[in-house]
């Protein structure tokens, strides 16, 4: 019986459910020291001196500064701009300056209090607006980290033909990933190899950074993932920094070192979603057809480039929404500010720009006096549509199916009318509204990214009959372990419980790329499927037929391995021949394929307190094929809940360049009582290049709630609020 499409039990479920799964801080490491970080207390300036209180017994501690780095003082990722430890200059609050390790965790924190840093402050820019206005140049020559331009047709000609032209400006804030396990890492030297282990999404990103920091080849560094308590992008790039810190301390101490951030440090110092400002000018004919979209995007990258160029790219490529328009211009840029660097968070730039394009429909609909639904129906992508980058959508376009499913199941049209009547009744204690959104989300890396990555994954059969999936893609809760076993099982034609998934360990598994960008199932799952298919053929050739029992598997393995320890099959990513992309002009197939999603938010606003209560969430998402339907639904409900948090509750508040609500007490994420019942429909429009037809599902759910909630609140209170989150305070302000 095939495993794909069945709700197989979570591979590591029993360990997680009994408290036996070992997250980094659960590992007992003999002789381990605890590392802590001296951080900048100003947003920008020169470090004149670092003073260590002579009254403190420093001989109990190990102290590391930039001069202890054996290789380059750099967190290698894209731009070589971010030091591992500030050396003379700080560019943001909480920037690491020095490291301290002590055998006793409490004493390590005590030591931290005995360090004072003397600065010469420099003028800083603390907001996107200050940076864009060049109040002060703080990054390269013009504060611009990266910019892009997409052009299709001529927006000037489009506006000349338009019957309606509607402009809007939208702002979205940063967002904290708020995984429940804070960043945590340990490092030690073992037979000349620096072993780094911890909570992380991308083992080979950490390896790349460690090679530069330690000036060592890959075989002298080993990166191993421990059970990871959530990531959501927040453990994509930051673990490279933390791994570097641990390794430096471990080198100097000649002992293992563990660094486990507390919640405050994790929230204040590590990456967030990029805040963004998006401006739209849209031209339409009187029958509602789009003729011009002129879009400007500005994102706040923070003090260093980290992943900003790629986040901006994805935001830019999704900015025009899932609609066909003959004349499109998207101008985007990311600017630097003296705040902790922003980075990866589920959706990776797309939720920011999709929020704007989707909410803008409400403004257009009001100007044209029609329902936004009608306008979406006229313009929505279908097979044969051409995107802003000139990509022809050849297959697997479920946008309309998603939208119509949601419209029907949420009872959108009827509720829209009923709520208009409800809102006219002064005796009702609430105002009500229902709002829609529909989006596309590119699966896998942007543009030619997958080609540059050239990921590899595989399967191995050991001579004693052990079957392993080999990939660096990490299980962070989404179900990678189970999904890989399902895909391999069906491709091999062997039972799923014969298959193990190897721990992501750079000394054991090939580089299947980072666990990001909704690519693990579609791209890496595809490599696993190909490798397993090859192994099946090899097994049949060596043994005559597929083994039917474990004993036969052992015999077949012995025959196939012919004395070697294992028979290993690896596959490398191959670009589908129909996909062409030009990085220089930003023209062509931006992504191999897109997933689609639609959402209806049905909510009410208390007339006295302005609190918003979401009554029901209805969503339909086209993900090609659900390898594991229950886990896919889990991704959808979980991702949409993060989107609801962003829409209504979550806002990092910055003062003097640092998050001042860096606690779960006042940075509020949704609880079980804030979360509505979900009606989820998975739509399966198979993608011919995905394993069993699968596309991506990880990020898509994050895109849809924001604009639907804002549209519903507009119906409820009669005002379009162009800023997230829509708190009672913002509603009060809009109504005053």
């Amino acid at each position, binding site marked *: 019986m095939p495993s794909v499409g069945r*709700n197989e039990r979570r591979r590591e479920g029993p360990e997680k459910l009994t*408290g036996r799964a070992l997250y980094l801080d659960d590992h007992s490491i003999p002789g381990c020291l605890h590392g802590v970080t001296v951080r900048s207390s100003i947003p920008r300036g020169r470090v004149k001196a670092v003073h260590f209180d002579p009254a403190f017994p420093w001989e109990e501690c190990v102290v590391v500064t930039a001069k202890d780095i054996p290789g380059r003082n750099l967190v290698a990722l894209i731009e070589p701009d971010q030091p591992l430890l500030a050396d003379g200059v700080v560019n943001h609050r909480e920037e690491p300056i020095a490291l301290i390790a002590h055998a006793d965790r409490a004493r390590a924190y005590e030591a931290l209090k005995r360090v004072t840093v003397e600065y010469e402050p420099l003028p800083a820019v603390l907001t996107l607006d200050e940076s864009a206005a060049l109040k002060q140049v703080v990054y390269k020559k013009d504060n611009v980290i990266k910019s892009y331009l997409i052009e299709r047709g001529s927006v000037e000609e489009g506006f000349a033909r338009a019957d309606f032209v509607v402009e809007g400006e939208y702002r979205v804030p940063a967002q904290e990933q708020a995984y429940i396990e804070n960043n945590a890492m340990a490092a030690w030297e073992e037979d000349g190899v620096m072993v780094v282990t911890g909570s992380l999404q991308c083992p080979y990103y950490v390896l790349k950074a460690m090679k530069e920091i330690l000036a060592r080849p890959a075989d002298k560094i080993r990166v191993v993932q421990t059970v990871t308590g959530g990531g959501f992008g927040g453990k994509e790039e930051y673990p490279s920094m933390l791994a570097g810190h641990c390794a430096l301390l471990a080198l100097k101490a000649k002992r293992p070192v563990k660094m486990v951030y507390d919640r405050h440090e994790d929230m204040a110092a590590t990456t967030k979603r990029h805040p963004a400002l998006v401006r739209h000018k849209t031209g339409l004919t009187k029958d509602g057809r789009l003729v011009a979209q002129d879009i400007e995007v500005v994102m706040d990258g923070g003090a260093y480039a980290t992943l900003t160029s790629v986040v901006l790219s994805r935001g830019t490529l999704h900015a025009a929404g899932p609609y066909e328009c003959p004349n499109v211009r998207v101008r985007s840029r990311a600017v630097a500010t003296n705040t902790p660097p922003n980075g990866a968070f589920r959706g990776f730039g797309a939720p920011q720009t999709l929020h704007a394009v989707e909410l803008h429909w409400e403004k257009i609909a009001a100007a044209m006096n029609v329902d936004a639904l009608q306008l979406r129906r006229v313009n929505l992508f279908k097979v044969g549509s051409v995107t802003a980058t000139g990509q022809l959508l050849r297959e697997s376009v479920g946008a309309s199916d998603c939208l119509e499913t949601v419209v029907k199941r949420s009872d959108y049209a009827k509720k829209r009318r009923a709520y208009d009547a409800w809102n006219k009744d002064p005796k009702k204690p609430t105002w009500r509204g229902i709002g829609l959104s529909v989006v596309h989300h590119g699966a896998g890396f942007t543009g030619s990214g997958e080609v540059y990555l050239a990921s590899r994954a595989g399967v191995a059969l050991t001579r004693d009959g052990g079957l392993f999936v080999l990939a660096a893609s990490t299980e962070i809760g989404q179900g990678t372990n189970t999904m890989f076993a399902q895909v391999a099982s069906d491709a091999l034609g062997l039972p799923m419980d014969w298959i193990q998934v190897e721990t992501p360990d750079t000394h054991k598994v090939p580089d299947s790329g980072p666990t990001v960008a909704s690519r693990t199932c579609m791209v890496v799952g595809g490599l696993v499927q190909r490798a397993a298919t090859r192994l099946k053929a090899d097994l049949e050739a060596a043994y005559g037929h597929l083994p039917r029992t474990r004993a036969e598997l052992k015999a077949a393995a012995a025959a196939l391995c012919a004395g070697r320890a294992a028979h290993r099959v690896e596959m490398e990513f191959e670009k589908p021949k129909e996909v062409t992309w030009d990085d220089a002009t930003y023209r062509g197939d931006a992504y191999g394929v897109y997933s689609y999603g639609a959402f209806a938010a049905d909510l009410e606003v208390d007339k006295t307190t302005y609190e918003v209560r979401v009554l029901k969430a209805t969503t339909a998402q086209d993900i090609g094929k659900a390898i594991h339907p229950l886990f896919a639904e889990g991704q959808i409900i979980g991702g949409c809940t993060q989107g609801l948090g962003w829409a209504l509750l979550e806002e990092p508040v910055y003062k003097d360049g640092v998050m001042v609500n860096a606690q779960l007490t006042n940075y509020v*994420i949704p609880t079980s*009582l804030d979360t509505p019942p979900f009606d989820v429909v998975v739509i399966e429009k198979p993608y011919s290049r995905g394993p069993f037809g699968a596309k991506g599902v990880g990020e898509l759910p994050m895109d849809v709630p924001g604009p639907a909630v804002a549209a519903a609140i507009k119906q409820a209170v009669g005002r379009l609020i162009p800023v997230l989150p829509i708190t009672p305070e913002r509603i009060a302000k809009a109504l005053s």
Partner: protein
Amino acid sequence: MSPIVLTVNGKRRSFGGPAFTRLIDFLRETLRLTGTKEGCGEGECGACTVLIDGAPVNSCLVPVCSVAGAKVETVESLGAPEKLSRLQQGFLDCAGAQCGICTPGMLMSAHAHLKAKGAKADDASVREAISGNLCRCTGYQHIVDSVLCAARKTAKRKR
């Protein structure tokens, strides 16, 4: 000063260290019961939830001296991987755990709730019972399903 004596998962334990040591540190560091997790250290996330005399409490906010003589239960008191409790089985069947870091605390809150409510547990009561346990992965619906699935089985057994 005499040591603090309490019962943890049915075993008598004594602690001679500083009286204001947090219960979570006593559990994780002294007893090596690392199933109980620390997510925030300030009683907001609920990952460190344990039962004290049957009631769910954030063990990061409790000094050991305040639980002298009490019965403490942690996730390790439920089932084992090869023999899950009914509630744990519900979580496995209904995908109530994703990354798993909130799961031990979530299980303890749900366990206390089912003990009190049994088959009378419903969507609203479960949501209330776990509202002090933050989960960033699931959006809670599968957790509620998991608890109710276990509650229904409890009910079946009673009949």
